[in-house]
C-alpha cells in the first residue's frame, strides 16, 4: 500500500494505491484525508488505477515501417531516433529539432526535459501544452504581482470567505472535491459564478446560495470592468490598501469611467441590477468593510482567449480594488488545470523560461543555471516559439523538422487542429513517448512506451503551489521505461556534454539547486522532507525554511513591493458573429474525462457515462434548427467542421452552444476552434468561436 496522489487534475487528491499482488491485476484505490480533497474522490480518481492495466497498454517501442507502426526493441528505436536527430542537426542546425511537453509531467521530468532540449539537443524550440492551459493566468499574475503561483494561499483558506467569485471556472465538473471548500460561502449566499452556461458549478448558487451571472461568451473582461467601475462610483474601493500596496491607481481609476453599468449590460447581456448586486456582495465581504474575506478566482473560461491576459488583469484589478491580495482570508487566484500545471510552468518547459521561473533572456539567470548544469552560459539557446507559433513553423523553411512529444496529445488538444496536425504530419521525424497509442502517437515515426504515475516516483506542485510526492506504488509492465531513463540513454547517444541522471531523487536535488534564488525557489525542498509529511509550499529557499503557505503578506514580488494596477480595455472575440455564423461555441470539460481523454476514454466506467462528443444547446435554438435531442449535428466554423450528438438544456444562452473537447476524429471540437493567440501569453482562443449548426440528415 502506498500513499500517493491522483494522476489527473491539479487538486491532486490524496489516495492509497494497493496492488493486489497479482501482476497485471488492477490495484485498488482508497481516498485519503488531505486538505484539498478531504477524503473524497470523483469517478476519475476512483477508477484511476484502471489506466495502469488498460488492455492496449504499450509495452514495446514501435517504429514505422511501410506506413505501419510495428514493434521493435529499445536499442533499435533509440538508435534510429538518435541517428536521425544527429543527421538533422548536422544538416539543418540544432533548431531543426523541437520538443513539446505536458503539464502532467512530474517536476523532475519537466525540469529534465527542459535541460535535455537546451543542452542535449541545444535547441531553443521547446514549449508545452500548459500554453493552452495556464499561460494567460501566469502572464496576468506576473504582470500584477511579479510572481505567478496559482493560489498564493492554501485552498482551505477559501472555507472562511464571505464571498467567492469564480470567473469562467467549473470545478464541480473538473475537480469535484474542490466544491467542499465553497460550502461555507454558499451558506451565506456569497458564491458568484460567471459562466455563459448553468454548469453544475453555477447551479451551486441556486436557492439563495449566491448569484449566477451569464455573460455573452468573450465578454468576461467587460463584466469585470463593470464590477470594478461600480466599486469606484459607489465608494466601495479599499483606498487605504491601494495607497499602501498598489501602484497605478489614478490610471486605473481613469480607465474605469468609460465602463458604466448600462454599457456593460449592453455588451455582456448581464442585467445592471445583477452586476450591482455582485459588486456590493464582494465589497461587503472585503476586509475593508468588515467582511470575513473575499476571493476572485479565474479559470480557463476567462483565460483561453486571444485577450486572456487582459481578462486576468481585469480580475486582478477587481481584487486589488477590493483590497484582497496579500491578506489572510482574501485574495486572487487562478485554478490550475493539469496535475502539474504549476510545476511544469516553473522549471523550464516554457519557451522563454529556465528553472525557478527564471527568464531565459536574463544574463544572471542564464549564468546561474549554466553553472548548475556545468556548461558555458553562451551555449544556452535563447527563447523559442510559444506553442501555436511553434506548431505553425513545423516543416516550414527554417522551421523544425523533428519533434519529440512527452505527456501531451496535441492531435486532440491543439486549436484549429486539422491545420496544425498537417504540420505535424509533414515532419521528417515525430517521436512520441506515451503509455498508450494516443492519437498523436498513432501519427509518430517512433513510439516509446513509458511508465505512468503510480509506476514511477516524482513530485508534483498542486494548484496551491504545494509540493507533493507521488511515490512509486506498483511495478511497471515489463518492457516500459521511465522518461528519465529515455533521456539519459538518448543524451548519451547524442553526445551530450553533460550526463542525464535517470534517478528522480538525484534530478530533484539538481532542480532544487537550479531554482535557488529564482522566483519559484525550491532549494529547501527534498524528497526526504516530503516523505516526512511536511506541508511545503514554495518559495522555500533553505532546508530549514518552513516554506511559504501564503505569499504576498508583506510585499508583492515586484521591484517596489507594490502590486501593479494595469488598465485594460474591451477586446471582442477574434471570431465575429455573422449571419452565416450566428452562434457562439464555447468549449470545456466533462466530469468523466481529463484533457484529451487519452487516459479516461480507456476506462470503461468513465467511457460508458460519456462515450462521445456532444453539443449542448437550448431547446428553442434546437427547435429553430430542426434539431432534436440525440440527433447528430454538424458544427461549422471558419476553420472546419466537427460532429456531435445534440443535448438539449435550458441552462445555456440562446446564442451559445457548448462542446467538450476530450474527443478525437470527427468529434474533435478543436477542428472548429480558433488559433488566434493572446499577444502577451501566446494562449489560443480555445473558448470562443463563431459557428453554425446543421442537423445531419439520414444519420443513424
Amino acid at each position, binding site marked *: 500500500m502506498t500513499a500517493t496522489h491522483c494522476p489527473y487534475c491539479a487538486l491532486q487528491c490524496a489516495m492509497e494505491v494497493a496492488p493486489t499482488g497479482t501482476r497485471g491485476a488492477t490495484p485498488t484505490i482508497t481516498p485519503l484525508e488531505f486538505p484539498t480533497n478531504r477524503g473524497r474522490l470523483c*469517478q476519475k480518481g476512483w477508477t484511476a488505477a484502471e489506466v495502469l492495466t488498460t488492455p492496449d497498454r504499450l509495452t514495446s517501442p514501435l517504429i514505422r515501417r511501410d506506413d505501419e507502426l510495428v514493434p521493435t526493441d529499445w536499442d533499435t528505436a533509440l538508435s534510429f531516433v538518435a541517428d536521425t536527430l544527429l543527421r538533422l542537426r548536422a544538416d539543418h542546425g540544432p533548431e531543426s529539432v523541437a520538443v513539446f511537453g505536458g503539464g502532467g509531467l512530474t517536476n523532475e521530468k519537466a525540469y529534465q526535459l527542459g535541460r535535455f532540449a537546451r543542452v542535449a539537443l541545444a535547441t531553443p524550440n521547446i514549449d508545452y501544452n500548459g500554453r493552452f492551459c495556464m499561460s494567460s493566468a501566469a502572464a496576468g499574475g506576473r504582470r500584477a504581482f511579479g510572481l505567478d503561483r496559482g493560489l498564493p494561499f492554501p485552498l482551505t483558506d477559501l472555507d472562511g470567505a464571505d464571498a467567492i467569485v469564480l470567473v469562467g471556472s467549473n470545478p464541480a465538473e473538473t475537480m*469535484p*472535491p474542490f*466544491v467542499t471548500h465553497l460550502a461555507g460561502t454558499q451558506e451565506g449566499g456569497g458564491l458568484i459564478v460567471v459562466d455563459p452556461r448553468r454548469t453544475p458549478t453555477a447551479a451551486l448558487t441556486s436557492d439563495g446560495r449566491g448569484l449566477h451571472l451569464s455573460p455573452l461568451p468573450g465578454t468576461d473582461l467587460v463584466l469585470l470592468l463593470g464590477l470594478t467601475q461600480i466599486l469606484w462610483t459607489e465608494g466601495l474601493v479599499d483606498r487605504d490598501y491601494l495607497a499602501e500596496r498598489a501602484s497605478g491607481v489614478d490610471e486605473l481609476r481613469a480607465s474605469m469611467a468609460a465602463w458604466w453599468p448600462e454599457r456593460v*449590460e449592453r455588451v455582456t447581456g448581464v442585467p*445592471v441590477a445583477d452586476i450591482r448586486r455582485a459588486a456590493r456582495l464582494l465589497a461587503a465581504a472585503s476586509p475593508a468593510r468588515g467582511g470575513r474575506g473575499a476571493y476572485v478566482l479565474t479559470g480557463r473560461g476567462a483565460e483561453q482567449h486571444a485577450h486572456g491576459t487582459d481578462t486576468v488583469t481585469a480580475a486582478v484589478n477587481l481584487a486589488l480594488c477590493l483590497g484582497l491580495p496579500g491578506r489572510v482570508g482574501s485574495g486572487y487566484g487562478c485554478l490550475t488545470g493539469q496535475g502539474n500545471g504549476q510545476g511544469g510552468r516553473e522549471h523550464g518547459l516554457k519557451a522563454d523560461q529556465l528553472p525557478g521561473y527564471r527568464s531565459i533572456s536574463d544574463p544572471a539567470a542564464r549564468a546561474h543555471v549554466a553553472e548548475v548544469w556545468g556548461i558555458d552560459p553562451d551555449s544556452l539557446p535563447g527563447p523559442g516559439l510559444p506553442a501555436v507559433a511553434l506548431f505553425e513553423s513545423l516543416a516550414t523553411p527554417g522551421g523544425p523538422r523533428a519533434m519529440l512529444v512527452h505527456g501531451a496529445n496535441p492531435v486532440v488538444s491543439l486549436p484549429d487542429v486539422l491545420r496544425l496536425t498537417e504540420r505535424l504530419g509533414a515532419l521528417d521525424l515525430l517521436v512520441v513517448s506515451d503509455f498508450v497509442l494516443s492519437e498523436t502517437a498513432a501519427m509518430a515515426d517512433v513510439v516509446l512506451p513509458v511508465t505512468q504515475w503510480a509506476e514511477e516516483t516524482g513530485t508534483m506542485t498542486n494548484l496551491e503551489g504545494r509540493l507533493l510526492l507521488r511515490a512509486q506504488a506498483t511495478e511497471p509492465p515489463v518492457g516500459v521505461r521511465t522518461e528519465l531513463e529515455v533521456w539519459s540513454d538518448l543524451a548519451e547517444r547524442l553526445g551530450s556534454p553533460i550526463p542525464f541522471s535517470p534517478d528522480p531523487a538525484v534530478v530533484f536535488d539538481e532542480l532544487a539547486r537550479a531554482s535557488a534564488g529564482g522566483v519559484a525557489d525550491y532549494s529547501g525542498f527534498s524528497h526526504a522532507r516530503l516523505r516526512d509529511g511536511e506541508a511545503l509550499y514554495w518559495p522555500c529557499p533553505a532546508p530549514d525554511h518552513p516554506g511559504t503557505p501564503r505569499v504576498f503578506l508583506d510585499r508583492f514580488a515586484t521591484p517596489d513591493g507594490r502590486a501593479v494596477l494595469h488598465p485594460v480595455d474591451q477586446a471582442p472575440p477574434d471570431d465575429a458573429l455573422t449571419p452565416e455564423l450566428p452562434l457562439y461555441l464555447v468549449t470545456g470539460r466533462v466530469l468523466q474525462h481529463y484533457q484529451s481523454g487519452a487516459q479516461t476514454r480507456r476506462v470503461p466506467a468513465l467511457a460508458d457515462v460519456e462515450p462521445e462528443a456532444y453539443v449542448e444547446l437550448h431547446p*428553442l435554438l434546437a*427547435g429553430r434548427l430542426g434539431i432534436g435531442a440525440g440527433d447528430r449535428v454538424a458544427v461549422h466554423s471558419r476553420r472546419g467542421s466537427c460532429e456531435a450528438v445534440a443535448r438539449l438544456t435550458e441552462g445555456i444562452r*440562446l446564442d451559445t452552444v457548448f462542446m467538450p473537447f476530450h474527443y478525437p476524429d470527427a468529434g474533435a471540437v478543436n477542428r472548429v476552434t480558433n488559433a488566434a493567440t493572446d499577444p502577451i501569453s501566446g494562449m489560443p482562443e480555445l473558448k470562443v468561436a463563431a459557428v453554425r449548426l446543421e442537423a445531419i440528415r439520414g444519420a443513424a
Partner: protein
Amino acid sequence: MSHRIVVVGHGMVGHRFLADLAAHRLEGTRTTVLGDEPHPAYNRILLPDVLLGRSDLAGLTLPETPGVRLLRGRRAATIDRLRGVVVDSTGEEHPFDTLVLALGADPVFPTVDGVVGADGNPLPGVAALRTWDDAHRVRSAAEEGARVVVMGGGVLGVEAAVALAAAGSEVTVVHRGSTPLDRQFDADSGAVVRAGLADLGITTLVDVRVSGVERRRDGTLASVRLTDERHIPADLLLVAIGVRPRTRLAEEADLGVRNGILVNDSCRTDDPAIYAIGDCARTPRGCSGLVGPGWEQARVLAHHLAERISGRSRPRPVLGADGGVFRVKAEGLEAVTMGEFPDDEFTPGAARVLSLTDPAGRRRVRLAVADGLLVGATCVGDPQVAADLTVAFDSRTPVPDDPAALLARPLAGASAPASVVDLPETAVVCRCNAVTKSAITAAVAAGADTAEAVANATRASTGCGSCTSDVCRLVSALGEAGGSRSLDRVTVA
C-alpha cells in the same frame, strides 16, 4: 512639416476621438484641443450618479490622451477658414491643417418668464443637467427633503427624477406628452414607467406644460406654474426638455448648418479640412443624441484621417451595429428600447409585433421580429429580458421560431426540482461518480442501511458531497418502505 490637428471640444466624443487617433500612432502630427470647461474630460453619462451623491468629479474623469496639447477652459471664438486658423477666447490663434468640431449640444430652456435671464443662462432655482457644474449645482440645491420639479419626462428627465428621489428629494415630473418617455416608448410602456415612477415616490403630471415660475421677494424660487394653472411648490426647477446642437461657430464660418453641422458619412463638412462629430453634427442619418453613434463617428474619423495623413491604407475599424439603444439609467426603474417597429402590425410578411403587458407587475415587453432577427424591442420592468433582447439586437443572433419565447425568460429552474424520492430509477443522483438512483436502491436492498454504507457500496456522495442530503433522503425513504431501521448516521468517509 507636421500635420496640425485642432480639436474643438473635449466632451465624450472629442475625448474618444483623441484616443482613437492616438491608437493609430501617426508620425508627425501635432494635436491641440480646446475644451470650454475648466475640468478634465469626464463621463457625462454618469452625471445622475453625482445627483445621488455617489460620484465625484474624479470618479467621472476619463484618462488623458498623452502627446496632446490640451487647453482647458478655452472656447473657440472664431474659425478663419481662409487662413486655416481657430481663434480662442483668449485671442490665441491655432493654425490647423485639419479641424475637428466636437462642440456638443446645449440644453434647451423654455421660453417662459422667469426661467432664463437676458444672457440666456438659467436664473436662480433653475438648472439643466448637461455639465459637471450643472450636476454640482443641482446637487447642492436639491438637499434632503427639497422639492424639485423636473420639466420633461424624457430619458434624462426620468433618470434625474429617480436619482433625486433616491437622494431624498420630493420630485414631480411635468411632461407635455401623455406618457413619460413617449419619444421612444409606446403608450402602454410609458404607462408602466409612470406607475414605476410612482412606486419610487415620484409624481408624474402629463399633458401639461410649465407656463412660468413664482419667486419670493428675495428672488428664490417658490413654485412652478403649469398651463392648467396649477402651482407646484418647488425649490428647484430642473429643465430636461432636450438639447440643441452647438452650431454658432460653424454658422459664423459659413459652413452648412441645418439643425446641426451638416457632414457626410466620413463626418466631413462642406470644407474638406473641417470635420464635425458627436452631438453638434448632423450626418445623412440625422442626429442621434446618443454617445454610441458619436463614438462610432470618432472611430471612423480617426481611421479616415490616419489614412489621409499617412497616405497608407489601414485596417478598417470594425463598427458595432449601433442601431441605437436607449437605456434608462435609473436604479429601480428598468426601461430600454431599441430599433424600430413597423407602422402597421397587421401587414402579412412584414415584421411580427408581439407584446406582453403586465401593468400590476410593472412589466411591459414589446418586440418586432423580421426575417428571423429582432428589429425592434421595448422592455420595461424585466431586467433579464431587457439584457437578453439588447444583446440579441446588437449581435443579430437568430431568434426562436416562435418569438413569443422572447417575451419572458424561458422557464429554466422556475419549477421546484422534484424530490430525489420521486425521480425515475435511471436518474443520476451522484454526478461525481455517476451513481444512478437504481444503483442506490440496489445497494439498500443488499443491506446498506446508512448513507455511509451506501457510499461504501456505490461511491455515491464521495466526490463533491453535494448529493449527501439526497442520498440520506433516499436511504431513509427506502428503509421506511422496506421496514428496516431508519437512518441515524449521515457522515461520509
